[in-house]
């Protein structure tokens, strides 16, 4: 590191922070699918196809997960975000 670099230190790149944030999101997403039943990804695809027949929607606007409550019952949670227009 030279004298010039010493003064430039504040201009630290933050691509590593971007990498970490992107990884945290994608890894959490993939883990939630992994822990669910094997039909979950297909179910998500099918739901997306049905909703797309009526409104224009991007794949990341549909979120689907299964929550297990106290082992006796499981709740299928489908979260669809629609755009304003």
């Amino acid at each position: 590191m030279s004298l010039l670099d010493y003064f430039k230190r504040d201009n630290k790149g933050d691509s590593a922070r971007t990498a970490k944030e992107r990884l945290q999101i994608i890894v959490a997403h993939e883990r939630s699918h992994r822990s669910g039943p094997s039909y979950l990804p297909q179910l998500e695809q099918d739901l997306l196809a049905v909703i797309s027949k009526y409104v224009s929607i991007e794949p990341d606007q549909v979120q689907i997960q299964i929550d297990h409550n106290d082992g006796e019952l499981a709740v299928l949670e489908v979260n669809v975000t629609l755009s304003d227009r």
Partner: protein
Amino acid sequence: MSKIIVVTSGKGGVGKTTTSASIATGLAKSGHKTVVIDFDIGLRNLDLVMGCERRVVYDFVNVVNGEANLNQALIKDKRCDNLYILPASQTRDKDALTIEGVQSVLDQLKTQFEFILCDSPAGIEHGAMMALYFADEAIVTTNPEVSSVRDSDRILGMLQSRSLRAEQGLEPVKEHLLLCRYVPSRVDAGDMLSLEDVTEILAIPLIGLIPECGSVLKASNGGTPVILDETSPAGQAYADTVARLLGEERPLRFVSEERKGWLKKLFGG
């Protein structure tokens, strides 16, 4: 009791074979009888990294198929007394391995060896599944880079659901993170994921940190596991990793950039 350890990663080119060669050599040097198996059927490379490529006569698939017995296929390392290599087949494909076949070879190896290291192929297909299926412990080799971290997480999922231990509801495979090709100066500059970032995302205990180091390429050029280059940072970091694997506590080295004097800081170099 022998221990089966898989060296895996998901992504290719992150340092599995380098790691397998060095850790196997380190364990053998510490006095433990060790065998390292190349599971990369069709893309054999462990023999090259360990410098025994011209001594391969029979291979893993020959043993699985009963075309050779285990002792004919095992190659004794010339540098370490306690070390043996079971090379992969170069002419078959990965489907040549079956669970039953792998199990019978591992069962025979268990009678002779304390440590059985399985050098996994990249990917999550059949070959990689065969390598991790019987594992007691896993060394998940990861680079501080987005695709490697994501793939490591995927492999962790496989270890937790598709291994024999998972299928039989036994104690889970013991997972270790090995972070390779680490460059502290780039971490400081903010353009490489830090050790803390990676351990936070993957959430498994760290067994070692291997710095990016020119000696790794030099060692593979010559067919000598880099752990034998005792003066190199990577060699020393692998030696620490082996010690930790054997239960010893060692402080982490090579996490931060080597300190330079103020004169060097001022004038560069």
